[in-house]
């Protein structure tokens, strides 16, 4: 399990961080802000997932970027700089192409952030965060996560058992295969329901349903977490101030216009870069520290 670097911080910090970068990523259309977010997300995802992340980005994200960039001008004909006309008579404008690129960029930024989220926010962190707020539902979540691997294993066993009495899902035509698949699902359901009653007994036996249930977790908000939280929140506040002042946005229609670059806006960009790069910076600092400790040993 990934418990190094940023993933080792308190789940609350992980969650606030990802909520912030995802929301900001969906919101800011200013090119500099978009590039900052896209580059940081890519760096972090490569750091987390290594070569697989590079492949994911080249194989899926790049074509997606192109498709999304083309999709927009085909349906959006606003803008003043007309490049050429389609056969249907609709104009293709420079503004709509730029707008398409911008929104495509936004989409893949969000997707790459999500790939980082998936690596860091494991199910137990989620269950912990929402264990107090929605105790019953997060218990259901925990139970489903327990059952699914178990059921998959059962499906495998059942299909072997069925196979060895001459009923094979990988044999025969489509209809037969589907029918055998249904038989397996049906056996699994009976098995799952009968066994689940015992699980309910086990819950009752350990007092589930008593009032004032608490929720335990292994996580503690320590001083390191608090420090990280303080830095993160200050950066978020600066970025939000920038948004309120219109520094992070960009106008596409009728003509392209971005907010001017001023010392204030540079501060905002820096804060945003700092925020997006926080996990990467944290990871690098940790690595440097280790090296210096190791050299002293």
């Amino acid at each position, binding site marked *: 399990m990934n418990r190094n670097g940023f993933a080792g911080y308190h789940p609350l910090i992980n969650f606030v961080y990802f909520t912030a970068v995802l929301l900001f990523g969906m*919101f800011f259309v200013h090119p500099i802000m978009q590039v900052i977010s896209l580059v940081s997300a890519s760096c972090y995802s490569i750091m987390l997932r290594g070569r697989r992340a590079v492949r994911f980005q080249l194989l899926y994200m790049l074509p997606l970027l192109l498709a999304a960039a083309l999709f927009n001008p085909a349906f959006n004909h606003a803008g003043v700089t007309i490049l050429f006309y389609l056969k249907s008579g609709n104009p293709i404008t420079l503004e709509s192409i730029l*707008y398409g690129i911008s929104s495509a960029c936004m989409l893949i930024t969000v997707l790459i952030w999500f790939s980082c989220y998936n690596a860091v926010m494991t199910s137990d962190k989620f269950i912990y965060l929402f264990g107090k707020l929605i105790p*019953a539902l997060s218990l259901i979540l925990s139970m489903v996560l327990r059952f699914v691997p178990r059921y998959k294993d059962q499906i495998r066993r059942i299909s072997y058992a069925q196979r060895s009495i001459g009923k094979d899902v990988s044999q025969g035509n489509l209809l037969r295969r589907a029918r055998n698949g249904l038989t397996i*699902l049906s056996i699994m359901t009976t098995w799952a329901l009968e066994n689940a009653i015992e699980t309910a007994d086990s819950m009752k036996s350990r007092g589930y349903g008593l009032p004032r249930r608490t929720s335990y977790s292994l996580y503690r908000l320590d001083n390191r977490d608090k420090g990280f939280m303080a830095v993160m929140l200050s950066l978020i506040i600066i970025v939000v101030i920038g948004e309120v002042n219109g520094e992070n946005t960009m106008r596409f229609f009728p003509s392209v216009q971005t907010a001017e670059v001023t010392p204030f806006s540079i501060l905002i960009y820096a804060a945003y870069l700092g925020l997006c790069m926080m996990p990467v910076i944290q990871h690098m600092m940790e690595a440097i520290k280790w090296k210096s400790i190791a050299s002293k040993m």
Partner: protein
Amino acid sequence: MQESRLEKTNSRFGRRTLVSAFLIFVIIPATILFGVYALDDRKYYFISLLIILYTMLPFAMVFEKRKPQARELIVIAVLSAIAVAGRAAFFMLPQFKPVAAIVIIAGVSFGPEAGFLVGATTGFVSNFFFGQGPWTPWQMFCFGIIGFIAGLLFRKGWLRKKRLSLSVFGGLATFVIYGGIINIGSMLMFTPTLSREALIATYVSGFWFDLIHAAATAIFLFILSKPMIEKLDRIKLKYGLIDR
């Protein structure tokens, strides 16, 4: 059920109801207004995401408030896990998945609330295995609402525990509700502009996918509904799940 229903003094009761009302009457309109005025009406995806999350909140609140018993939790967890694992049972047939069918059966057998919860949980948990993304809330909502409607229509007597009735409903619901809503979601994800042509293009490109999905649901319900409902009824009877 043997658990005593006496232990039901909870101070958060009232607060949650208040929050729920606050959400419907204040937050949702405010979000829309915020989208229209503050965000220049361009952040459709973001606004739609928020509204979808809000619609799921009351379900969560009502359920939590009720202090569900161990067996209710188990039934919902088991059915969701079957739906998630059911995708694995049909590894040999891509695109042909039983999720919607199981959600509908859950709604019919255990009521609209259970239907919604099984659907939403399935949407959420399956993405722990396939990867969470901006599509997660949409899938949760779509599966949830299909289960909810199935339960509601059954309670009203418009939907019967007959396999023909169920599979017609299942096919339609999957095509219209799931396909209809998910396509809006993916379009908003793809382009931030809202136009009729773009929407039509999205529907056209998703047509075959939606059709296979709908057909799968209908077929699953046609074959699976009878034995599944029988099994659920047997469990209700054998372990006294029915009296509540």
